[in-house]
């Protein structure tokens, strides 16, 4: 397994790499280029990088305007200030006219760490999911993040990409790995329960699967890198096969992947679904790894919920 790397780092590297291939690619930031890693692109393509200062709402409008001329703008800031502060701008200036703007939202979730609750966005997936036509990508590692960036470039329309601050393991460096917007990845097949995970929780889902196996429980693991459009076909198939679901995300249990999966299954294949995530609370200041333990965002949390889901089966 390769060294740990944050998905934001992979994002910056991908922009710099793909900048040569896609000449229409331009990058905007709001005084966070060092943190969002768009600074890597800026160094290579200074003439295609535009700092907008600490004025995110204007930045998303500028991105919208740029896109109407054929540019492919990537507008970056922290998830809190993209989906949070600029929801109206993203909804009205980008979503409603379905413009080709790519939103690179870094520092999502509680793994922001020490900066605390004001900067830990656990609501962005919920907010972005309500905008018609918005694609939401939440890569699990650096390999997936790089693929997500290129897929976003090739996709015509608005895309919200969610990246993290914390360095995480690379789990997708396999020869058969393939990224396709809207297609979940079945990482392991089981019979008793399916763990549907997104982002950094995918690695924990794989660890949880091994722990469950030791207890004689057979779990499927699905990586949902695209939260919208959701791979309904795969989720329904898994629900039918295993009869119980656990969703796992570094996001509020309200409105995120867990909600999306429940909405998908309700009325079609209503099996027990237990949601694992941030339990509708704000974060705290502490090192990211301590926070993951504090909020139970780990394999133990998934195992406990998997057993609960199985116990609810008819």
């Amino acid at each position: 397994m390769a060294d740990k790397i944050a998905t934001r780092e992979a994002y910056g590297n991908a922009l710099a790499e793909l900048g040569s291939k896609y000449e229409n690619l331009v990058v905007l930031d709001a005084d966070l280029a060092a943190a969002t890693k768009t600074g890597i692109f800026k160094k290579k393509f200074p003439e295609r990088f535009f700092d907008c200062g600490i004025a995110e709402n204007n930045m998303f409008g500028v991105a919208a305007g740029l896109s109407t001329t054929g540019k492919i703008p990537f507008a970056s800031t922290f998830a809190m200030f993209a989906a949070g502060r600029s929801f109206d701008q993203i909804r009205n200036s980008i979503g409603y006219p379905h413009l080709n703007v790519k939103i690179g939202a870094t520092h999502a979730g509680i793994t922001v760490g020490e900066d605390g609750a004001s900067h830990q966005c656990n609501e962005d997936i919920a907010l972005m999911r309500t905008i018609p036509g918005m694609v939401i990508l939440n890569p699990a590692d650096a390999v997936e993040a790089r693929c997500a960036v290129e897929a976003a470039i090739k996709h015509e329309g608005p895309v919200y990409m969610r990246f993290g601050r914390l360095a995480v393991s690379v789990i997708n460096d396999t020869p058969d790995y393939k990224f396709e917007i809207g297609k979940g990845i079945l990482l392991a097949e089981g019979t008793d329960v399916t763990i549907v995970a997104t982002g950094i929780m995918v690695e924990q889902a794989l660890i949880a699967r091994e722990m469950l196996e030791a207890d004689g429980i057979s779990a499927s693991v699905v990586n949902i890198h695209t939260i919208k459009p959701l791979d309904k076909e795969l989720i329904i198939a898994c629900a039918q096969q295993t009869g119980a679901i656990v969703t796992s995300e570094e996001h509020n249990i309200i409105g995120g992947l867990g909600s999306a999966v429940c909405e998908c299954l309700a009325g079609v294949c209503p099996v027990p679904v237990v949601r694992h995530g941030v339990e509708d609370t704000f974060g705290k200041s502490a090192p990211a790894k301590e926070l993951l333990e504090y909020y139970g965002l780990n394999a133990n949390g998934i195992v406990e919920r998997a057993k609960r889901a199985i116990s609810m089966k008819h």
Partner: protein
Amino acid sequence: MDNKILKLKRTANDIRIGAVEAVYNAKSGHPGGALSSADIFACLYFSELRINPESPKDPDRDRFVLSKGHSCPGLYSALAHRGYFDVAELKGFRHLGSFLQGHPDMKGIKGIDMSAGSLGQGFSCACGMALAGKIDNKDYRVYTLIGDGESQEGQIWEAIMFASHYKLDNLCLIIDNNGLQIDGKVADVMNTMPYESKLEAFGWNVVSIDGHDIEAILGAFDTARATKGKSTAIVAKTIKGKGVSFMENEAGWHGKAPNDAEYAQAMAELNELAKNLK
């Protein structure tokens, strides 16, 4: 009177008639700001903008963003008279089945360069269009119209900073300074004036004009075009509801449709004005 000026005055009056008809038929909408901006729309669409209704997506065209999107009855009327769509379509404004949405929709309306309506946003989009022109060394120009009430939005000042920082001299901002907003006088609700000294402090070139004086509007556009290295703002002093006596300078006519009697009177007044412009 110069033939061109007279024609533009007549066009502005036609735009007003279309705007009032649209709002009357919709039984809702925003006549006040549409009427205050009508002379500006006429000068933009019938003189200043390098556009072709046959080729509304031409990458080299000039762009216009109506940031104060609620004034779209005036813009739709201007587009219709300019040939983007049939003038008869104005009667469908705000009706199910019509493409003329309550606020500008770039996806469904030929000639609309940017969707707008949530105040403060269109101006930023215009900045993005102007920036793209700079990146690609294109000579198209970008115009955007904001309201004076709208300038209470913080995003407006973010955009003012941005345009100045990136020296967007291909961008021209027009402020429809009619002095009224929904809750009353801008000066009473939340004073945004004076614009001139504020914009100059932000590094803009500023021209103040009577926003109903066709020659002054055209002259301001000339100045904007000739000004290099900085964006130009045109502070256009206007009368809300201009052209319909009972709507003039009445905040109540910001977002209200005339009833049958009011409509008849408005049309009589505007038709009378048209006669005098022969």
